[in-house]
């Protein structure tokens, strides 16, 4: 796949602003589509790799993603442009929504719309997880993914505990396999 030229700060800001402004129910599906399919800044695998890192460090993962991609292309200014693109539009929406909620939050129509959006948004998150899972190269990766899922979703183990146990195990396994 052909690589486009390095994006400018303005392009970084606008791309992430568009992803965050349209990213109902979480920006990740929109950011992935924009970065991998439309702009082609990263391949599917590079995106999965970078996102795994952004998920691992603290903070909002999509903001971290915008900072890492911005910094990679345009240094500190690119990082700032990416972060602002990710943060400014939702901040404006929150200020508007906060005022609207006080006025109209109890209308049945508003409640119905919120329920429909919530159910569809849940499906989008599941689809992103499944699609990233398709990039696995080793069968054992599915086992570690299943364990992480069970720990958080089913057994409600604290996140930090899950990472402290599974991260060294999964990384160690990769290390051993790769040395052979």
């Amino acid at each position: 796949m052909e690589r486009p030229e390095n994006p400018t700060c303005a392009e970084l800001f606008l791309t992430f602003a568009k992803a965050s402004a349209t990213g109902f129910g979480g920006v990740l599906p929109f950011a992935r589509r924009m970065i991998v399919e439309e702009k082609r800044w990263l391949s599917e695998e590079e995106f999965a790799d970078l996102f795994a890192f952004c998920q691992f460090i603290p903070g909002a993962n999509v903001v971290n993603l915008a900072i890492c991609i911005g910094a990679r292309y345009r240094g500190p200014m690119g990082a700032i442009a990416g972060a602002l693109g990710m943060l400014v539009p939702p901040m404006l929406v929150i200020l508007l929504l906060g005022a609207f909620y006080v006025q109209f939050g109890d209308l049945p129509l508003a409640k119905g719309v919120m329920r429909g959006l919530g159910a569809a948004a849940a499906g989008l998150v599941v689809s992103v997880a499944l699609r990233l899972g398709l990039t696995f190269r080793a069968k054992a990766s599915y086992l570690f993914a299943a364990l992480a899922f069970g720990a958080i979703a089913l057994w409600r183990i604290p996140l930090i505990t899950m990472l402290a146990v599974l991260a060294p195990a999964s990384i160690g396994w990769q290390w051993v396999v790769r040395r052979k």
Partner: protein
Amino acid sequence: MKWDILLDMAGYYSTLSLICFGGVLASMPDVHRFIVEQHHWMSSEEFTRLFGISNAAPGPNMMVVGMLGYQIAGPLGAIVSFGALSLPSSFVAYYTGSLWHRMRDRPWRMAVQAGLTPLTVGLLLASGYILTMSADSNSWPAFALTAAVVVAAMIWRAHPLWLLAGGAVLGGLGWI
């Protein structure tokens, strides 16, 4: 009085910013403890409602924190909470991100990366599961909608906005 609240929020969120591994969604129980149980700034019901709205609005999951801040201390509360939660982790991302990229050909780095990806997928799936459980509880039409969205996004690569718009319309019609 209001400045005390803003200062409390700034202190709490800037700390949370550095320890919220796995994103904001995973830290919601702790935010609930801080706002509802420790400071009694709002009821638990109000907290849950605001969480629901923020999830339906565009933007990163962390927006819920701005929404909560708005209800507690007005627009300034939203900006302070949002800023305090974003800034510290942004510096971490900036400094570790470029280091991470420079090391991309080292074997240890590739092992770390390949080892972390499955955990991310598991965590994302867990978020999807928890969202599905809270959005679709006791409602089979809502569950059917969620399942249809998964299929449409996976197989036909439908644009997320269309899927959400469909969900909003069905919800507005009172079918969900």
